[in-house]
């Protein structure tokens, strides 16, 4: 827990919200000898992500931190070293209306991943408490669309794709009035 404590001291008060964008950072120690199995589980997630079904999440990732970076400019002469690998989870999200919190949903869908972390409870609400206990403030995060929900972003992308298809399908149309009629007809389905 030393790393988490240090990080908390460094990030205390940084907050987890900028405008409409929220962030979540969880840092948990990986269990003894569990690193390889965890990597295997994360590799499976690349093809079938348990996070894909979380409607409020814009972007999320798990990262295995084996060791702290050294050798960079102005690095301390005697750098701190981790005594074990850690699992970092970070996400930016827009809170969804309705029941439950993101932590509750994460404790359920991400259990197969956090199971490899030291002390992650086998089941029950204690899992949510575990994630909350390993959370720390986020000092720096990126939100591409801080005021839009993921659903709105997806709708906008679908409209852009539909417009692209329209442009390609009508690129030989030279008559402005015909083009306008075609656009109004198709665009009526997009909005």
């Amino acid at each position, binding site marked *: 827990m030393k790393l988490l404590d240090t990080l908390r001291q460094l990030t205390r008060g940084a907050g987890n919200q900028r405008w409409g964008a929220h962030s979540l950072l969880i840092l948990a120690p990986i269990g003894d000898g569990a690193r390889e199995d965890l990597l295997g589980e994360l590799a499976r997630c690349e093809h079938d992500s348990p996070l894909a079904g979380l409607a409020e999440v814009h972007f999320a990732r798990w990262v295995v931190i084996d060791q702290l970076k*050294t*050798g*960079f*400019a102005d690095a301390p002469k005697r750098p701190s070293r981790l005594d074990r690998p850690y699992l970092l989870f970070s996400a930016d999200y827009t809170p969804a209306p309705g029941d439950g919190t993101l932590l509750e949903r994460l404790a359920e869908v991400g259990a197969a991943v956090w199971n490899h972390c030291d002390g992650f409870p086998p089941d029950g609400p204690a899992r949510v408490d575990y994630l909350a206990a390993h959370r720390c403030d986020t000092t720096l995060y990126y939100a591409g669309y801080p005021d839009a929900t993921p659903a709105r972003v997806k709708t906008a992308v679908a409209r852009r794709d539909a417009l*692209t298809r329209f442009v*390609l399908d009508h690129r*030989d149309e*030279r008559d402005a009035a015909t083009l306008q009629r075609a656009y109004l007809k198709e665009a009526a389905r997009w909005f």
Partner: protein
Amino acid sequence: MVLELADIQGNILRGYSFPRAIHLFVAFPDADAGRRLLRALVPQVQTAARWDERPETALNVALTYAGLRLLGADDECLPGALREPIAQRAPTRLGDDLRTWRGELGRGKAHALVLLAGDGWAFAQRLRTLRTLLDEHGVEVGFEQRTEALADQREHFGFADGFGQPAVEGTDHRRAGQGEPEEYGSWRDIKAGEFVHGYEDEDAQTETAPLLRNGSFMVYRKLEQDVERFRSYLDREADHYCATVGVNHGTDPDTAHAYARELVAAKLIGRWRDGVAVELAPERDPAEAHALRHESVGEPDNDFRYADDRDGRRCPVGAHVRRANPRDSARATAQTRRHRIIRRGMPYEEGDARGLVFICFNASFERQFETVQRLWCDDGNAFGLGRDQDVLFASGAGSGKLTIPGEPPHFARAERGLVTTRGCEYLLMPGLRALRALAEGGER
């Protein structure tokens, strides 16, 4: 900062420009045989040390992760990208469809890659000697690839290629426009650590392990090019370009069409076929369309930037070379210097099949080659282009369109299947000391 050129293998920092090469992917029967072969090869390896007289041939050696493991290398320092079997990694990280891969390349059997470059009798003679040496050590060649340079430094789609390389600090063969753009029109060399381990990189990191010192990570990709498809694609797009945007030079229709073909090709690639950058010359004389395809400019001017062409009116933002090296383009400015690669590809021809053996060197597969390929070429989001893809790598995941900005803009259709990956391998081309240590079994 002085580069240990005699410990760095040749062809990384400076291209050989030999007209011919053969690449032999070999499997060692066991660790001892592998070490014995390395001991025999190491004295033959061409280094980056300056030569007074150009050698007639040059031999180099790279190792796969399987090879490094077999030889007992300390693999703690090796990145996940090299450890992961490439056939597993390529679909997710490079967008490859393994059904298009052919032969043994990238199938996990190779331990080492022996590269021999040269020409004529000397090349043939040395290749015979090399094959005998491999036989003597019981080493099996699982996959071999011949390459041959085309006239005028062209690749099979007809573009003069290979001169847009990074200027590397500590080397003396560099030109304006190849490093990192700085103020007042000047250019700074890219730190050597971006390409060769053990030197300061653009993040001021120098730390490395003995196994990696003076070595470079190598990407090997066999890319088949459908030349007929590219030709007919350009014809169709030229028809459309003439009908919509038009070639307003009072030229006859045939000349206009021939020029539109060259113009569309140049706008999508970012260079004219003779090598001239579109950013420097957004228009050419339509009457010269034919010459563009047959006469290369020896050393095209590379001293250009994109910052004054944010909307891509001169060179489209999605053009191949602008994606691969965005220079000072607004949204990627800060990152470009961390995502450069040194390319050493060469064309190949096998019966009807033609293509490019793409080889590049970098210090990080993920941060450099994979970022350029996956985030910059296979997607347009980094440049504000949505799902628009590079013309050469169009797939089902893209928007299906390419934009040539203008009044009016030209919306080209993306054509799939212009370039098909036939196989891929990730390797380490170690420094000479590391290679010797591996040969002696002492690299631990």
